[in-house]
C-alpha cells in the first residue's frame, strides 16, 4: 500500500511529481504525525509555503515518498514536534521565517532569526523587526557545573555557529547549538528567480555539496516539467557526484585524524583530495564542479582527456589508500581517541532519519542512490556499507568503505559511458507545476522541493540539507564525553552550517 493511501486527504495536487502531494485536514495531519511518532515512516522534510505547511514522509522499505499539505488556520498548525522531536528545529524555522505557529510545540524560541534582520517573518507576512528578547539557552543546573560558550567565530578555517557547553569538570553535561549565522535568505532569493539563477543559488547552498545540490535541483525541475535527461548526461552527473564524494571523504578522514593530532594522515589524504579536485578540473573545468549539473542535463561534456586522467587518479588512489587504511587501523594512539568516542545510538538515528555517514555508522541502512533511487544508479553496482557501533571510529570506517565504493562506481561509469547528447532543451510549462528531487550528497540526502510558475520561473523552492537531522544528534553524541573530544566528534559529523542555515 502506498504511503499516501493510509492518510485521509481531501485533494491531490494536480501537477506534483514524481511523488504525490495531498491536501489534508486535521485528521490527515494527525495521522501523518502518528505514523512518524510510531516509527512507521521517516520525516524527510517540513517547510512553510504560507499559508500552508508541507511535510514530506518517507517509507524507507518501499522507497516511497509522500508530501502532505496542511492549510494553516489563522496562521496556526498542529505541532509535529510535540509528538515527533526531529521536527522541532524545522518548526522553529517555519515560525521565524513564515510566522506560522506550531500549536502545542515544546519549544517556541526562534531559529535562524538571531535578531539582526530588519524584518520579521521574511517569507510570510513581513513586519518590522522589534528589539528581540534575549535568547534563553536551556538550563542545566547542579553543583560544579560551568558553561563554555564557543563561537560563532571558531578557531580554525570553519563555518560559524554557536555552541553552548555545560560541563562538570571535563565532562560535557549538555551541549546546545545555536545556528543561523550564515543564513543568507536563499529561499527568498529563489522566489521569482529564473531557472538559471535558481540553479546557481542551489549550487551555492553548501559549497562542499554543490554537485549534490545541483543534482537534486535538476531532478526537481525535471520532475516538474516532465523532462527526460539524455543517458550520457545521467552518467556524467553520477561521475561528478562520486568525484565530489571522494574528495570530501578524503578531506574528512584526514581532518578527523588531524583533530586527534595525527597530522600524517591529514597530509596524505590532503594529497589525494587535491589530486581528485585536479582531475575534476581536467574533466569539467572547475575543481568543485560548480554549475556543471543543470536542469535538462549537464553544462558541458567531459573533456576528451578526462577519462585517462580519471583512470590515472584511480590507479594512484588504489596504491596509496590501502596503506592509509592500514596506517589508521594500526595506530593505537589514534584508535584510542576514535573508538567509543561520540556514540550515537541506532534508535536515535532511526528516529531522526539521519542519513549519510552518521546514519550508516549507527545502523541505518539508507542511501538515496539506492532508494528511492535515481538515474543512473539503478544500472550500477555498489554496496552501501553499514555499521552498528555509532562512534567516531565507525564514521571513519563508513567513509573508508564509501571511498572504495566510489572508486568502483567511477570505474563502471567510465567503462559504460553512453554516447549521445548531454542536455535536453527546457520547455517551460504554461501552468504551475511542482517537483521533488532527492540526491545523496557525501553527508547524506539532500531534498529539494519547488513550484514553477507558468512563465518558467521559480515560485517557491525549499532546500533541506542532511544536516537538519544530524546537528541535533551531535548534541546527543557529545553527552558524557570530555570537552577535548568535541572537535573530534564534530569533525566526524561534519555537518554543514551553510546548508542548514540557508
Amino acid at each position: 500500500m502506498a504511503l499516501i493511501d493510509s492518510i485521509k486527504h481531501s485533494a491531490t495536487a494536480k501537477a506534483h511529481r514524481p511523488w504525490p502531494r495531498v491536501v489534508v485536514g486535521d485528521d490527515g495531519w494527525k495521522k501523518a504525525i502518528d505514523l512518524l511518532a510510531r516509527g512507521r515512516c521517516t520525516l524527510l522534510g517540513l517547510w512553510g509555503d504560507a499559508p500552508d505547511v508541507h511535510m514530506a514522509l518517507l517509507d524507507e522499505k518501499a522507497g516511497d515518498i509522500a508530501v502532505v499539505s496542511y492549510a494553516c488556520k489563522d496562521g496556526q498548525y498542529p505541532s509535529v514536534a510535540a509528538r515527533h522531536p526531529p521536527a522541532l528545529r524545522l518548526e522553529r524555522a517555519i515560525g521565524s521565517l513564515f510566522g506560522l505557529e506550531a500549536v502545542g510545540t515544546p519549544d517556541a524560541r526562534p531559529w535562524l532569526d538571531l535578531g539582526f534582520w530588519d524584518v520579521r517573518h521574511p517569507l510570510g507576512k513581513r513586519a518590522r523587526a522589534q528589539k528581540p528578547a534575549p535568547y534563553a539557552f536551556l538550563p542545566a543546573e547542579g553543583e560544579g557545573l560551568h558553561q563554555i560558550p564557543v563561537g560563532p567565530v571558531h578557531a580554525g578555517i570553519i563555518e560559524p555557529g554557536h555552541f553552548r557547553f555545560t560541563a562538570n569538570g571535563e565532562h560535557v553535561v549538555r551541549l546546545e547549538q545555536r545556528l543561523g549565522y550564515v543564513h543568507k535568505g536563499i529561499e527568498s532569493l529563489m522566489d521569482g528567480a529564473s531557472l538559471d539563477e535558481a540553479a546557481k543559488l542551489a549550487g551555492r547552498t553548501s559549497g562542499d555539496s554543490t554537485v549534490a545540490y545541483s543534482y537534486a535541483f535538476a531532478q526537481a525541475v525535471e520532475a516538474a516539467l516532465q523532462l527526460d535527461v539524455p543517458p550520457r548526461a545521467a552518467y556524467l552527473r553520477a561521475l561528478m557526484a562520486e568525484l565530489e564524494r571522494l574528495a570530501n571523504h578524503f578531506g574528512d578522514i584526514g581532518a578527523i585524524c588531524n583533530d586527534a593530532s595525527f597530522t600524517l594522515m591529514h597530509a596524505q589524504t590532503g594529497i589525494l583530495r587535491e589530486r581528485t579536485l585536479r582531475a575534476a578540473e581536467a574533466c569539467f573545468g572547475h575543481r568543485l564542479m560548480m554549475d556543471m549539473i543543470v536542469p535538462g542535463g549537464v553544462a558541458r561534456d567531459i573533456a576528451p582527456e578526462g577519462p585517462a586522467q580519471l583512470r590515472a587518479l584511480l590507479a594512484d588512489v588504489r596504491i596509496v589508500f590501502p596503506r592509509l587504511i592500514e596506517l589508521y587501523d594500526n595506530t593505537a594512539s589514534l584508535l584510542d581517541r576514535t573508538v567509543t568516542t561520540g556514540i550515537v545510538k541506532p534508535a536515535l538515528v532511526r528516529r531522526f532519519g539521519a542519513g549519510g555517514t552518521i546514519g550508516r555508522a549507527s545502523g541505518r541502512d539508507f542511501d538515496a542512490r539506492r532508494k528511492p533511487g535515481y538515474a543512473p544508479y539503478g544500472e550500477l553496482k555498489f554496496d552501501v556499507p553499514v555499521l552498528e557501533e555509532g562512534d567516531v571510529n565507525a564514521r571513519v570506517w563508513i567513509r573508508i568503505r564509501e571511498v572504495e565504493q566510489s572508486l568502483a562506481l567511477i570505474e563502471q561509469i567510465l567503462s559504460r559511458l553512453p554516447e549521445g547528447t548531454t542536455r535536453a532543451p527546457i520547455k517551460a510549462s504554461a501552468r504551475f507545476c511542482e517537483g521533488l528531487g532527492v540526491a545523496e550528497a557525501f553527508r547524506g540526502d539532500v531534498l529539494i522541493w519547488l513550484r514553477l510558475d507558468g512563465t518558467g520561473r521559480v515560485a517557491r523552492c525549499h532546500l533541506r540539507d542532511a544536516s537538519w537531522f544530524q546537528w541535533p544528534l551531535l548534541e546527543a553524541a557529545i553527552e558524557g564525553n570530555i570537552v577535548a573530544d568535541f572537535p573530534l566528534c564534530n569533525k566526524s559529523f561534519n555537518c554543514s552550517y551553510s546548508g542548514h542555515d540557508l
Partner: protein
Amino acid sequence: MRRTLFENITQRVLTEPAPAPDEAALAELAKSVDRAARAKLGRSLSIRQVDAGSCNGCELEIHALNNAFYDLERFGLRFVASPRHADVLMVTGPVTKNMREALLRTYNATPDPKWVVAVGTCAVDGGIFAGSYAVAGGVEEAIPVDLHIRGCPPSPAELLQGLIALLEHAR
C-alpha cells in the same frame, strides 16, 4: 607508517613553484599598505580566517593552501586560531546580517597594523546573495578591505597569487 614516512623522504617533492604575484592585487594594495607596517612585519604574516556567511566553497580552497602542493607556510604565511595573533583577516562570503557584529568584533580584536583580504566573488558585493533581507553585502559593508581575491571560489593558485602580492608589499 614507516613506509609512508620513508617514501615521503625519497619521492620527489609535491610542492609546486610559487606563482608570480597577481598584478591587479599589487595595484589594489599599493594604496593601502603603509611603509611602517612593512618594516615591522617583514615577510611573515599570521592569517585569521573568518567565514562571514560563505557557502563554504571558499573555505575548501583556503584549506587546500595548506596541502603539500601549495604549502603556504613556506612563504612565512600561516593560519592562526585567534584574531589576537593575526596580522591578516581573511574574510569569505557575503556578510550576513547575523554575522556582521561578530565580524566587526573579530576585526576589533585584531591588533594593528592589520590587513583585510576579502576572498570570493560574494565578498566583493554579496554576489548572488546580494539584495536578500539577510545579507548586508560585501565585506566592505562591515570592515575596511585592503585586497580582494575574486573567484567562485578562487582556486588555491589564485589565492596564493593574491597573498604573495600582499607579502611583496609588506616586505
